[in-house]
C-alpha cells in the first residue's frame, strides 16, 4: 500500500514539474502575444509579465504545500490512533485571507493604470484615422483622410499612431492582431475605438475573434507595418490607381461583379463586397485565406463557397474564356 502511495506522489510531483517546465519554456519568445510590435501591445504584455510571476509563484507554493501535506500525513498501517481533531485556527485563516488580498493589490495597481492608458486618448495630436468595418466574412478598411478604401490587408506606417474606429455591417466581430495587441469588438449599431503605434516594420497575422457565423475561422487579415516611404508610395497608388483596359474590364462590369465590388477609377461602385482597388498589390485573397496568384484567383472565382464556406459571393458560372479574362484583369490592378 505504501508503495502505491509513493508512486502516486512521485507521479503527481513529476506531473507538476512537467507543467512547470512547460510554463517555463512557454515563457519563451515564441508566442505572438508576447512579441508585441506596438505600444498598445507592449502595455498589455507588461501587465502580463507582472501577473505571470505572481501566478507562477502562487502556483508553486500552493501545489507544493498540497504535495507536502499528502506525503507527510499519509496514513501508515501501524496508526490506529485517530489524529488530533483540529477544527481550525482563526489567526492562520485571517492570515491567508489577508495575504492574497495584499497580492491582489499589487496586481490591481498596474491593471487599473493600464486600463486607463489603453482606453485614453491616442498619444498624439495627429493620428492616422482608419475606419474598420466588419463583414461576414471579411474586413473593410477605410482611410477617410486619404480618401480610399481597401479590404483584408491593412497598411499602417511605422511610428505613427493609428486611430481605429470599429463597427460592423452585420453581426459582432472582433478585431485582433495578436502582435499589435489586445482585441476589441466590432459591434453593429455602435462604434468602438482602438489606437496603436506600430514599432516594427513587418507583416502580421490577425483574424476575427468573435464567433460570427459559418466562416468565422476564415475571416483573416494581414497588417503591414510599412516604413514611411513605402506607406506613402502605397497610399499614392491607392489614391491614383491604374486600371488596365482589357477584355476582363468589360467582363467585370457585365458579369455582375460590379454590383457588389468597387474598383476606383471604373464605373464599378458596388458597396456590398470588398473594395478591389489595386487588388493585385495584395498578397492574399478571400480575407487572407489564399495567396494572391492567378491560379488561386481562378479557383476562387470558380467556386467561392468551396474556398470560404458560406461565402456570400455567388458562383458566377463564368466560362473559361471569361474567367481567364477576369483573372488577367484583376491581376493587372496595381
Amino acid at each position, binding site marked *: 500500500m505504501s508503495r502505491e502511495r509513493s508512486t502516486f506522489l512521485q507521479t503527481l510531483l513529476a506531473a507538476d514539474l512537467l507543467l512547470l517546465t512547460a510554463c517555463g519554456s512557454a515563457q519563451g519568445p515564441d508566442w505572438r502575444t508576447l512579441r508585441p510590435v506596438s505600444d498598445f501591445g507592449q502595455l498589455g504584455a507588461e501587465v502580463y509579465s507582472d501577473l505571470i510571476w505572481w501566478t507562477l509563484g502562487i502556483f508553486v507554493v500552493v501545489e507544493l504545500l498540497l504535495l507536502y*501535506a499528502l506525503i507527510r*500525513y499519509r496514513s501508515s498501517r501501524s496508526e490506529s490512533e485517530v489524529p488530533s481533531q*483540529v477544527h481550525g485556527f482563526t489567526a492562520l485563516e485571517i492570515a491567508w485571507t489577508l495575504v492574497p488580498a495584499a497580492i491582489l493589490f499589487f496586481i490591481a495597481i498596474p491593471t487599473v493604470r493600464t486600463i486607463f492608458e489603453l482606453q485614453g486618448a491616442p498619444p498624439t495630436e495627429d493620428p492616422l484615422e482608419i475606419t474598420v468595418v466588419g463583414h461576414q466574412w471579411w474586413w473593410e478598411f477605410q482611410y477617410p483622410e486619404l480618401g480610399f478604401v481597401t479590404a483584408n490587408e491593412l497598411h499602417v506606417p511605422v511610428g505613427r499612431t493609428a486611430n481605429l474606429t470599429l463597427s460592423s455591417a452585420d453581426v459582432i466581430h472582433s478585431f485582433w492582431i495578436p502582435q499589435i495587441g489586445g482585441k*476589441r469588438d466590432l*459591434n*453593429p449599431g455602435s462604434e468602438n475605438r482602438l489606437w496603436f503605434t506600430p514599432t516594427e516594420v513587418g507583416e502580421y497575422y490577425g483574424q476575427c*475573434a468573435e*464567433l460570427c457565423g459559418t466562416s468565422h475561422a476564415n475571416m483573416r487579415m494581414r497588417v503591414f507595418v510599412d516604413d514611411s516611404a513605402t506607406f506613402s508610395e502605397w497610399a499614392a497608388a491607392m489614391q491614383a490607381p491604374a486600371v488596365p483596359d482589357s477584355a476582363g474590364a468589360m467582363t467585370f462590369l457585365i458579369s455582375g461583379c460590379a454590383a457588389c465590388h468597387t474598383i476606383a477609377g471604373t464605373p464599378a461602385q458596388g458597396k456590398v463586397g470588398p473594395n478591389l482597388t489595386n487588388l493585385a498589390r495584395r498578397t492574399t485573397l478571400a480575407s487572407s485565406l489564399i495567396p494572391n496568384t492567378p491560379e488561386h484567383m481562378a479557383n476562387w472565382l470558380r467556386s467561392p463557397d468551396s474556398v470560404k464556406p458560406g461565402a456570400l459571393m455567388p458562383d458566377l458560372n463564368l466560362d473559361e474564356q471569361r474567367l481567364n479574362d477576369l483573372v488577367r484583369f484583376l491581376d493587372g490592378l496595381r
Partner: protein
Amino acid sequence: MTATGHGSVYSGDLRSWLTTVDHKRIGVLYGISALFYFVVGGVEALIIRLQLASADGAVVGADTFNQLFTMHGTTMVFLVLMPLSAALFNYMIPLMIGARDVAFPRLNAFSFWTFLFGSLLLNLSFFVGDPPDAGWFGYANLTSRQYNPGMGIDFWILSVQIMGIASIASAVNFTVTILNMRAPGMSLMRMPLFVWMALIVQVLMLLAFPPITVAFIYLLFDRFFGTHFYIPDAGGTPILWQHLFWIFGHPEVYILILPSFGVVSEVLPTFSRKPLFGAPFMIFSGILIGFLGFGVWSHHMFTTGLGAVADTAFSLGTMLIAIPTGVKIFNWIATLWGGHIHFKTPLYFAVGMVGLFIIGGLSGIMHASPPVDIQQHDTYFVVAHLHYVFFGGTVFGLFAGVYYWWPKITGRMIGEGLGKLHFWLMFIGMNLTFFPMHFLGMDGMPRRIYTYAADLGWERWNLIATVGAFVIAVSVLVFFVNAVRSVRAGERAGGDPWDAATLEWTMSSPPPEYNFAVVPAVNSARPFWLHKYGPTRDISTRTKEEGTPSQPETPPERIDLPSPSGWPILAALGLSLIGGGALVGLWLVLIGVAVLVFGVYRWAFQPLERLGHPSFGPAPGGGR
C-alpha cells in the same frame, strides 16, 4: 445485509420509476441521464479534437463544427454538470440533513422529467438536421432570424428555457428542504459543507435563471414575432444580450463549481480522519463567492467596449473573488495537514480537483486584468482556463462524490484498482488536452475556429491536445467498466464503509425507502463521528452526549411515505409539448397547454397519501 440491502428501494417495474417521488430514485435518474449526456458531449468533443488535430482539418465542415461546439458547451453545462450535481443533491441532501424526503416530492419528480424532456428536445435538433450553431453563449445578433434562419436556435432557446423551469422548480424545492427539513438539533452551522454549498447553489439558481429567462423571451419575440430587442438596424442593441446572458452566466459558473467544492469538503475530512479545517470560514467564503458572483458579469465583456471605468469596476470585483476562493484552497490543505490520510479513490479525485482547480483559478486572475484579458479573451487560453475550472474542478470534484457515495447509493463497493486507473488516465489526459491550450491561446489561436493554416505553428500542441482527449475517453470507459462490475458483483458495502462523520452513513446501504427508521437527533457538525469516537476526541464538542447512533433496522413506529404520482411527468410532458409545439404549429402548443393544465390540476387535487401508499413499521393501532 439487511432486508433493505437487496435493493428494495430500486425494485419495481418501469411504471414505478415513471411515477416515483422518492428522492433517491430521482437522484439515480438524474445521475444516469447526466452520465449518458457526458458520453454524448464527450463524443462531440472528440470530433472537435479530431478536426483540429491538424491544420486544414477535413473531418467535418464549417457548419457542422459550429454545431458541435455549440452542442458540446450546452450539453456539458445544462445536461451534464448541472444534472450530475442535481443527482448528488437529490440523493444526499435529505440523507445528510436527516429528512425522509425533499419538501415537495412531486415537484422534484416534475423537475427531473422537465429536465429530461428539455434535454431530449435539444438533441432532437440533431435528428431534424438543424442543431444550434451560435455557441452555448448564443451572442445576439448572430442568433437573429436574418443571420440564423434555421430552427437550430429555436431548439436551443426552447429547450434551455424548459430546462430552466426545471432548475427553478428544483431550486425552490431544495431551498425549502434545506431550510425546513433538517433533523432536530441540526442548526445551520452544524450542516455539512456539501449541503451548505448546495443551499448557496439553489439561491444562485433562483436569482440567475430569471435574467436568462428574460433574455430568452426577448430573443423568442425577436425570432417569432418580429420584435427588435437585439436588432441594431431597428434601434435594438445586441449588447443587451451580453449583459443579460452573463448576469446569468457568471453565477452559473458558481452553480457549476460550488457543488464540487462541497463534495471535496466532505471527502477530504473523511479520508484524513479530521474535521474540515475552519468550517465557518468555508461556509462564509462560499456565501461570499456566491454573492460577489453577481457583480462581475462584465469581465466576460472586456473587449465589448464598455469603457475604462466599467472595466476597472468589474476587474476589481473579479479580483475580490480570488480571496474567498483562496481561503477554500488553504483550508482544504489545512484539513489534510496533520491527518491520517487514506488514499482511496474518492480522495484521489478530491485532491486532483484541488490541484487542478488552482491552475484554473490562477488563469482566472489573469483574466480579471483587462489589459491581459483582451489578449486572452476568445482564445484557446480561455478554453484552457474554463476546462481547468469545469473539468479539473467540477468533473473531478463530482467524480470524487460519485466514488465517495457510490457504496451508499448502490450498496456495493466500487473497484479501487480501476478507480485509481480511471483517476490517473483522466488526470494525465486532462492535462495533455488542456494545458497546451494555454500556449495556443498565447500564440494567437482564437476559439471556435474549425480550421487554421499550417504556417501558423499551431499543429504540434493541437495534436497533443487531441491525443489527451482520447486518453480522457479511455478513462471514462474505465469508469463505466468499473461501475458495471461493481453493480454486478461488487463487494457488499456496509452502512459506513469509510468510517465517516455525517448522517448519511448511519443507515444501511442503499438506504431504506424511508431513509431514517428514527428521526435522528443531532448535536454536532459530525454527529456520527461523535457517536463512534466520543466527545473527548472532538475538541469542538463540549457536550457529553453520545452523538447520533446507527439507525435501527426496522422502524419502531409507523412511517408513511408519499404515494407515487403520474401527474408530474404528465405536466412535464405538457410543458415540453408547448416548447416543441412552437416549432411545429399552434395546434401542438394548444395540446401541450391542455396536457399541462390537466396534469397540474389532477396533481393539485391528488392527496399526498392515498390508500395503499407506502408505509413501514408497525401497523396503525397495533404499533403502540
